[in-house]
Every structure is written in structure tokens, then in C-alpha cells.
């Protein structure tokens, strides 16, 4: 089938124009392609890494839960195994598997090992994939104090079959014999598998379980059964669908993942902006040639299609390269960083990249479409330009374009302002992102008008270099704003991110200072269910020489809502008054609480996610009973995004009878040596390395290091965006300088010194980049308010105080202005060469 004549015409023009572009400015096209490729690569890599990690995460959870229809889950301290007896006898239940699931503390390690205590015969029915791999048959698991390790755990702990694994129970070490290693395919993460009786004995949980997996007989409605069961379970025990278990784990990282995707999208759109900017400049540069084509009979539609085709061609090349780079980058992250893109919560050991054809194609199409959109506006404007006007040259009708874009710009700013205070949607700051997009686009559309306005305010200095530079900018404001747009977009986003990250870092640092007033911190491994100090242990620690004061805390997880991740309960301070001391409160109830009310201080996340109000009640499932507390204050907690509650140890002890503690703060006596005190503290226990002791300074430094690592990728993405923006400015400067060669030649003829011309170009570069930087600073600051007060709050459910990194922004601004000036000077030097003198003889 032959191509219609009009399409053939457009194709011919597209080919001619593209080949001419390739011949004349291959470097510019190459950099544009690379910019698109980077945007696509970042988006694709983030997607592939996260989907591989999530997939691996989901598979692992599925292995743990197995083929259960319902999971009955209780608090970590468990519930009586009588519940299992009752459920196993239920007519609707065809199989029930009791589980004791614990995060076990290991001496000398900060992380814990997940250990499942199971009844091998029952687990063989519900978790066949996990149990089926036990070498030597199921009976092997019955050996007392024996444990099977997953391959990953064995590698991590450097243990082989027959070795002893030391675990911490209470404050004492216990040894378990490694009975065997599960094959790699059985479970990809770190896991220990024990017989349930042995686990109960080892971990002092005799008669206790904390999970029961149930499979229902055919014909039973799972949801109906689950809801009915839920009403008859003890306080703190819930019945959930297995999917909820997986989603609960994954939801913790969702906001972080979405934010990363947004950053990748920003890089992609910055690439699109570069296409827009370079295509607009290229169209302006070629306007007489394009007008000539129109005069020779090329239709408006053919010209428009040909020019959009140029952008699409760049998009195809960039997207192809981008997808390839994205897959390579993702494979490298999975291979060397175990899929962790910075927040440390989504490690995926053993995950491999799965390049599904549909998402791959989607990224390819996205890059191409985005580049075509970037080319669409300049193509449309070129096709609409009357040929006679273009043949004459000049950019004088830009005022009309500027006026039109002003209305759209103001409207978009209004939309952005209206969207920003809206609440999250599905737990995500969807409207916040939309507000940023609207404000960014609106502000860009206002650039022409504001540039015209700013230039009209420029005074006449009677310095020919400066006055001519201003006149040139005023006349070619369209060209100037186009080159500015990409740097404004990338710089404002960088400013916004820099302010947000700096604000967060300052707030985090302040928070650490407030939370760590003591000289030293001691704690059992984070999240451990087995390690704690008994009242006697605490007394032993308190008598160590060199300590002026020691305070203990008990932290543990509580499941308030089965659909959500557990929250952290912190029992601290002997009395209610002491519990609230040194807590970074953002709001608190000044009124005295009723005499019978027990106060609790909740983190902002708990307020946002669960809707608890200051002064209102909060019911906590403790020791199988519902205990009512009153919210006495809201505090800021950067350590736990899923929420945390502080109560006094007195109240905790009264509710649970648990006098244990797993964290402590130590104030040293005057002149006491921290290292000696640490050694003395460790000497109080059989295994001195069983818990962690850090000076508050070291803990603060480590926390800040983790913080910086989490934001490293955002800095990298910002830097790429700014480099892309600067590249746009550089192209604009060099192509403008080349287009003005004849002008420079004439100025040299009439006696303008070479350095005066270079100075004129530098003045133009400095003036425009200074305007762009000032505009970017203003816009970026406005966007940072949405990042700080809307997106951050709605993503992570904690507040931060706005802080402006003045020095950092000043250095960045000066660097950018200098870079733009250097680019202009460099372009000017090339354009004022001897060729420029000859250029006055060229007609055009």
C-alpha cells in the first residue's frame, strides 16, 4: 500500500530536515538523545528494581504464610496455645498450623534473625515449600535445640551444618545446633526453622504461640469465616487474609518508592523540556529556511508533522538507549546493592531483574511520546508563522505569545494553589504532586512576560556593551526565555529538593539532639523479640561505676489495625511526667488530665493514619486486655513512619506486669570515661557483646550518615536534571552566538574590540542566567513549601520545620551564573573569530 501523497511529503521533509540537523549539529542532537535516555533509564531502573524487590519480597512472604486461607496473628509475646486447640477443632478448618514467629537477637549483631517455630507435620500441609526441603525428613527437626537455617542466613552468619548458633534470650546467650541448611530456592531471605516445642523452650515461651495458619474446608467462605472468627479472638489477636500480611510489609516502603518514581519522572520531563527548548531554538534558527519551504509549497500540516517527527526521532533513539541503560542500571543495583535504593527497608537478596515486555514497551513509548510533546509546541508555532514574516527575520511578535501564555500561566498557578491543601488520596500525596506540576508549568508560562517586564526595567547605562546586550535580549526575548526555561525547571526543582532535604536534615538533627540528651545509649538489637534486661539486670547495670543516672525503656510492637504495619509502643520514664520529658512534642495538652486517665503521647503518624485526637482516648491491646489511655500530646518521631506511642513504664508495668527493658540512656558522672564505663557495663553480662552501646554523639553521626545515604539518590537525580538544564543553556548560547556571527563581524568592523563583544555576550549570559537563577530560587522556594508541608507530611506522616540552606543555594546560584557566563564567553570567542569577520559577507 502506498503512502498518501501528503504523508509522503511530510516524510520527505522530515527526512531532509533531520538529516540536515544531523549534519549541522550532531553534538546537540546527541546530547538531547542522551538527556531523554537518562530520564527513561532512571524511570525504568527505579521501576525494575522496585518491582524485582517487591516480587521477591512477595514470594518470600508467600513462602512463610504458605497455603493458608486465614492467618491468626497475635502480639509478639503471644497468646495461649489453647486457642490453637480450639481453632483446630473448628468444623470449618481443615488444617491448622501453630507457629511461634520471633525476631531473635544474636550477640554482636544489630539485626535479628527471624525464627519460625513450627509443628513439622502440620506445617508440611500448609507450608510445604518451606518444610519439604528439610534434609533427613521431618523427624530431624525434633532434635532439641536444633535449628535449620536458610541458605542466606547461613552465608550471612558464616555457619555450616553442625555449627553452633548463639542467640540471646533475656540477657543470656543460648546455643542452638545448626541441623542443616535449606536450599537457596526454599527461602531467599535470612530465616531459622525450629520445632515449635523446641522454640517455645529455647525462647521461654512455653505454652505460647503468636501465629496460627488456617486452611478452611471446601465450601466455607473465607471472608465470612475470618470476620466471624475476628469477633471471638482475644484482645490483640487478629485474623487476616494472607495477602494482608504481604501488603502490610510492602506498604512501609510505598511512599518512598512513589517519591523515587516521581523523581525519575522529573528527570524524564526535564529531558522533554530539553527537547522542547532545543527544538524551539532550532526552529527559530531555521525559521527562514522553514519559511522558504512553506513558500515553495509545503503545507502547514506537512511542516508541523515533519518537525514533530524530528522530536519523535530523538525520542525513539533516546528511549531505546534509555531502556537499555535502565535495565543495566537495575541489574547492577540488584546485584551489588541487593535492590536497596536508599531507605534500607526494601532489600531484596537474590532478586533478579525481570524485564517484562509490557513495562519495557511502556517506558519506550513514554520517552518517545514525551519527546514528541516537547517538539509539538515549537512545530505548531513554526507551522503557524506567516512565511513572509519569517523570511524577514526578527522575533518581534513574541509579545503576543507572551500575552497568551500569561493567562494560561496565571490560571495554572491558581490551580496549583487550590490543589496543594487537599488531603492525600489512598495515603499518597497525589494532589501535592499535581500542585507542583501545575505551579511549575504555570511559572514557566509566565517567564516570557516577566522577562519582558524585567528587561523593560533595565536602566540605560550609556555603556555600549551593557546597553547593546540588554537591547539584544529585549528584542530576542523569545529565544532567551526558551533557553532559560530548561534551567529554570531543573534549578527550581533542585532548589525545592535542597530546601526540603536541608529542612528535614536540620529537623532530624534537632530531633536527635532532643531525643538523645544522655551521654550514652544502650540497646538490644532493634526489633528483637527475645533480648531484654530483667529488673535484676537493670539493677546490675545501674550500679556500674561512672554512671550518674540511668533510665530504661521498653519498646515493643503492637498491631492496632491488621491492615496496617504494627506501631511501636515505648514505655519510658518512671512516671507520666518523666515519660513526656525530653520528648520532641509538637502539640500537648496543657490541661491536667482527669485523675483516672492514663496519658499516652502519640507520634504524628498515629494521628494522621489512625485519626487519634489530642485529649481523646486510645485503646491499646496489652497482655490480652484492652487498656484505655488518653492522648496527652503529639510528638515527632522520625524513626518510625508507621507510628509510635509513649506511655510511662509505671503504666506499662501495671498493664502487663512486664518489668523488662531493652533500651537505656546513661548519663556519666563528671570525669567518667565513656570507654571504661562501656566496658564495665558489658562486664555485667556473660556475653558482653550481646547488646549495643554507643555514645550519643556516635549514634547521632551514624543516624545522619544513614539519612544522607537515603537522600544520596535524590542528589544524583537533581544533579542530572541540572546538568541537562545547563546543557540546554549551553546549546542555546552556542547556537545563538553562531546565528549572530554576522552581527559580531559588523561590530568588529566598526571598531568594537573582541573583548567588548565577548563582554557583551557574557553580560547577556549573566543577565539572563541571573534572572533564571533568581526566578528558579523563588519558584523553588514556593515548591519547597509543598514538598515540606504537603508531600513530606502526607508521604511519611511526620512534620519538618522549614529551613533555608542559604549558603548552599548561594554557592549553587553563583556557580550556575558563572557556568552560563563561561558558556556565553566560550561561544562568543568562537563566534568572534576571523570567520565572523567574513560572515558579514554572507547574506544569510
Amino acid at each position, binding site marked *: 500500500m502506498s503512502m498518501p501523497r501528503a504523508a509522503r511529503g511530510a516524510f520527505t521533509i522530515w527526512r531532509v530536515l533531520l538529516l540536515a540537523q544531523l549534519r549541522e549539529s550532531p553534538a546537540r542532537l546527541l546530547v538531547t538523545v542522551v538527556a531523554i535516555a537518562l530520564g527513561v533509564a532512571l524511570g525504568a531502573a527505579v521501576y525494575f528494581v522496585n518491582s524485582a524487590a517487591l516480587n521477591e519480597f512477595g514470594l518470600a512472604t508467600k513462602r512463610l504464610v504458605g497455603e493458608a486461607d486465614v492467618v491468626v496473628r497475635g502480639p509478639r509475646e503471644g497468646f495461649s496455645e489453647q486457642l490453637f486447640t480450639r481453632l483446630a477443632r473448628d468444623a470449618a478448618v481443615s488444617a491448622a498450623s501453630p507457629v511461634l514467629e520471633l525476631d531473635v537477637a544474636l550477640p554482636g549483631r544489630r539485626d535479628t534473625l527471624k525464627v519460625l517455630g513450627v509443628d513439622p507435620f502440620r506445617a508440611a500441609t500448609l507450608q510445604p515449600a518451606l518444610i519439604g526441603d528439610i534434609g533427613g525428613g521431618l523427624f530431624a527437626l525434633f532434635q532439641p535445640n536444633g535449628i535449620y537455617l536458610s541458605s542466606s542466613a547461613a552465608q550471612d552468619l558464616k555457619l555450616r551444618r553442625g555449627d553452633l548458633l548463639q542467640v540471646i534470650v533475656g540477657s543470656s546467650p543460648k546455643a542452638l545446633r545448626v541441623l542443616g541448611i535449606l536450599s537457596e530456592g526454599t527461602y531467599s531471605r535470612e530465616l531459622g526453622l525450629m520445632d515449635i516445642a523446641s522454640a517455645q523452650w529455647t525462647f521461654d515461651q512455653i505454652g505460647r504461640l503468636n501465629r496460627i495458619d488456617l486452611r478452611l474446608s471446601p465450601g466455607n467462605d473465607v471472608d465470612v469465616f475470618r470476620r466471624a472468627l475476628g469477633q471471638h479472638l482475644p484482645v490483640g489477636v487478629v485474623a487476616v487474609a494472607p495477602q494482608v500480611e504481604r501488603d502490610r510489609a510492602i506498604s512501609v516502603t510505598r511512599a518512598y518508592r512513589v517519591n523515587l518514581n516521581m523523581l525519575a519522572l522529573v528527570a524524564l520531563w526535564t529531558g522533554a523540556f530539553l527537547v522542547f527548548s532545543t527544538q524551539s531554538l532550532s526552529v527559530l534558527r531555521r525559521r527562514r529556511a522553514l519559511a522558504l519551504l512553506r513558500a515553495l509549497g509545503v503545507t502547514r500540516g506537512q511542516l508541523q508533522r515533519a518537525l514533530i517527527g524530528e522530536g519523535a526521532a530523538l525520542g525513539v533513539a533516546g528511549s531505546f538507549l534509555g531502556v537499555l541503560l535502565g535495565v543495566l542500571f537495575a541489574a547492577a543495583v540488584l546485584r551489588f546493592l541487593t535492590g536497596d535504593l536508599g531507605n534500607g527497608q526494601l532489600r531484596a537478596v537474590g532478586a533478579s531483574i525481570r524485564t517484562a515486555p509490557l513495562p519495557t514497551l511502556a517506558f519506550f513509548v513514554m520517552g518517545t511520546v514525551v519527546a514528541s510533546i516537547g517538539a509539538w509546541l515549537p512545530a505548531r508555532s513554526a507551522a503557524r508563522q506567516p512565511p513572509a514574516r519569517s523570511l*524577514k*527575520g*526578527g522575533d*518581534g511578535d513574541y509579545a503576543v505569545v507572551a500575552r497568551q501564555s500569561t493567562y494560561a500561566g496565571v490560571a495554572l498557578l491558581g490551580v496549583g494553589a487550590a490543589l496543594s491543601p487537599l488531603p492525600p488520596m489512598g495515603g499518597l500525596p497525589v494532589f501535592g504532586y499535581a500542585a507542583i506540576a501545575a505551579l511549575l508549568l504555570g511559572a514557566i508560562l509566565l517567564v516570557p512576560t516577566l522577562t519582558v517586564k524585567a528587561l523593560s526595567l533595565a536602566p540605560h547605562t*550609556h555603556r*555600549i556593551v551593557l*546597553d*547593546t546586550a540588554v*537591547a*539584544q535580549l*529585549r*528584542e*530576542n526575548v523569545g529565544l532567551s526565555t526558551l533557553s532559560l526555561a530548561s534551567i529554570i525547571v531543573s534549578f527550581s526543582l533542585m532548589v525545592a529538593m535542597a530546601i526540603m532535604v536541608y529542612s528535614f536534615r536540620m529537623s532530624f538533627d534537632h530531633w536527635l539532639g532532643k531525643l538523645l540528651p544522655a551521654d550514652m545509649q544502650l540497646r538490644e538489637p532493634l526489633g528483637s523479640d527475645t533480648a531484654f534486661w530483667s529488673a535484676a539486670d537493670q539493677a546490675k547495670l545501674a550500679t556500674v561505676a561512672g554512671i550518674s543516672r540511668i533510665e530504661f525503656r521498653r519498646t515493643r510492637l503492637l498491631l492496632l489495625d491488621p491492615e496496617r504495619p504494627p506501631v511501636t509502643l515505648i514505655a519510658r520514664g518512671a512516671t507520666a511526667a518523666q515519660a513526656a520529658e525530653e520528648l520532641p512534642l509538637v502539640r500537648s495538652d496543657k490541661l491536667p488530665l482527669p485523675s483516672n486517665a492514663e496519658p499516652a503521647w502519640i507520634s504524628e503518624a498515629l494521628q494522621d493514619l489512625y485519626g487519634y485526637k489530642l485529649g481523646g482516648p486510645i485503646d491499646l491491646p496489652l497482655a490480652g486486655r484492652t487498656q484505655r489511655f488518653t492522648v496527652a500530646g503529639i510528638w515527632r518521631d522520625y524513626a518510625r513512619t508507621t507510628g509510635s506511642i509513649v506511655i510511662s513504664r509505671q503504666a506499662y508495668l501495671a498493664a502487663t506486669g512486664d518489668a523488662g527493658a531493652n533500651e537505656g540512656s546513661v548519663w556519666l558522672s563528671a570525669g567518667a570515661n565513656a570507654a571504661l564505663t562501656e566496658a564495665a557495663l558489658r562486664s555485667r553480662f556473660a556475653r558482653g557483646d550481646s547488646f549495643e552501646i554507643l555514645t550519643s554523639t556516635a549514634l547521632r553521626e551514624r543516624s545522619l550518615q544513614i539519612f544522607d545515604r537515603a537522600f544520596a539518590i535524590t542528589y544524583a537525580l537533581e544533579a542530572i536534571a541540572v546538568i541537562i538544564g545547563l546543557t540546554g543553556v549551553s546549546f542555546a548560547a552556542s547556537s545563538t552566538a553562531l546565528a549572530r556571527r*554576522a*552581527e559580531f*563581524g*559588523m561590530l*568588529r*568592523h*566598526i*571598531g*568594537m*574590540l*573582541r573583548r567588548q563583544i565577548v563582554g557583551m555576550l557574557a553580560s547577556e549570559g549573566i543577565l539572563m542566567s541571573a534572572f533564571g537563577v533568581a526566578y528558579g530560587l523563588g519558584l523553588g522556594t514556593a515548591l519547597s513549601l509543598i514538598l515540606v508541608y504537603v508531600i513530606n507530611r502526607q508521604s511519611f506522616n511526620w512534620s519538618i520545620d522549614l529551613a533555608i540552606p542559604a549558603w548552599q543555594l548561594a554557592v549553587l546560584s553563583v556557580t550556575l551564573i558563572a557556568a552560563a557566563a563561561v558558556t556565553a564567553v566560550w561561544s562568543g570567542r568562537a563566534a568572534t573569530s*576571523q570567520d565572523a*569577520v567574513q560572515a*558579514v*559577507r*554572507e*547574506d*544569510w
Partner: protein
Amino acid sequence: MADPAVLRLENLSKRYSPDRPAIFERLELELRQGEYLAVMGESGVGKSTLLNLLAGLDQPDSGRVLLEGTDLSTLDDDAVTLLRRRAVGFVFQAFHVLPYLSVRQNVALPLDLLGVTEPERGLRTAEMLASVGIAPLAARYARELSGGEVQRIAIARALVHRPRLLLADEPTGNLDPRSAAQTLALLRAQVKANAGAGILITHSRAAADTADRILVLDAGGLRPMGPHG
């Protein structure tokens, strides 16, 4: 004693590369105050190269260019530029006026470069605009004007600072016959009125006839035009 010649060429030779024949060799020329000279020649014979050498925009391989008695080869680029700024005015075939400046600003450019301040700058610009007949267009921009009008701006700009030497390179090449005739008359009148000297590079015999004398540039160098052209 000061050199009475505005411009003197002594033994001037130029070639672009050693393996190519010289553009011209051992050119000699003297141009006195008030003299208006036309140089004709075929395309590629080196007319524009000659103009560049005269203005100090290019260096000869041998020989000297003396402008107002100053040997250009003894000056560095800045000094040549400053001399050109003061003593030379240019008119080009393609006009080359700056589209982003008004007519008045374009004409005043050389005065700005020379540091002439108000009110003298305004007076001299206004006088020049009036003398080339475009005073009413002073506030307008070049893109709004016809070719003939734009070339008048270029002529006004070339003469506003009263240079000793006017160099015009095919100034009527882009103009219609009527505008061309007006431009040539204007150029001659302005050279005479400013008591300077002028060189008109042209292909056109009619244009060349407006000059006091005509020289032809060819492989043999600069020679006077014969009675039959």
C-alpha cells in the same frame, strides 16, 4: 611632516596558503583626502580581501598598509581596532544593521564606541539622520523599513563619527536601481562633505562611475580602468 595621504599601500601581497597562487602581489596605492575611488574586479579576484587588509581585519604576507600615516602591521589587534573605530566607516552589501536597536541607536553606535556623550552624540546623530534623509524614521526598527532605507542607516552609521576613510563593499548589491542611484549619490556627497576619502568596491560600472577615479583589481594588481572598461 605628516603624511598627506589618508591611505597608502606599499608593496602589498597576500596569499591564503603557500601552495596556492597569490591573491595579489606588490600592490601600490595612495588615497588622498577628499578622493573617492572605485575598485572593480571579477568575483574571486580579492576585492574583499583587499578591503579587510585596508581595515586591519587581516594581515598581509608582505608590504604595508598605512592609515593616516600609521603602519597597521606595527599595531596589535586592539590598537588596530581603536584606529579603525575612529578613522574608518564601513558600508556592506548586506547592510548589517542591528535589528534590536532603533534606527537612531544603530546610527549612534560608532559614537557610543568612541565614548561621545550627550548632548553631542544626540546632535551628531540627528544631523546625520537628517543628512541621509531618514530623520523621521529615527525611532523605528530596521525590520520595519525597506532595503533602501536600511542602507541609508548603514551609510549614516558609517559616517556619523566623521571617519577619514569610508569603505563601501558592494553597497548597492541588494538595492533596486532607483535606491541604488540614491545611495551612490549619497555616499559620494557624504565623503565629500566630511572631507575624508572613500573606496567603493563594486561590480557595477555605473556605480563605479560615481567615483573620482576607477581602478581594476586583477591578477596584475591594481591598474586604472581603460576607456573601454
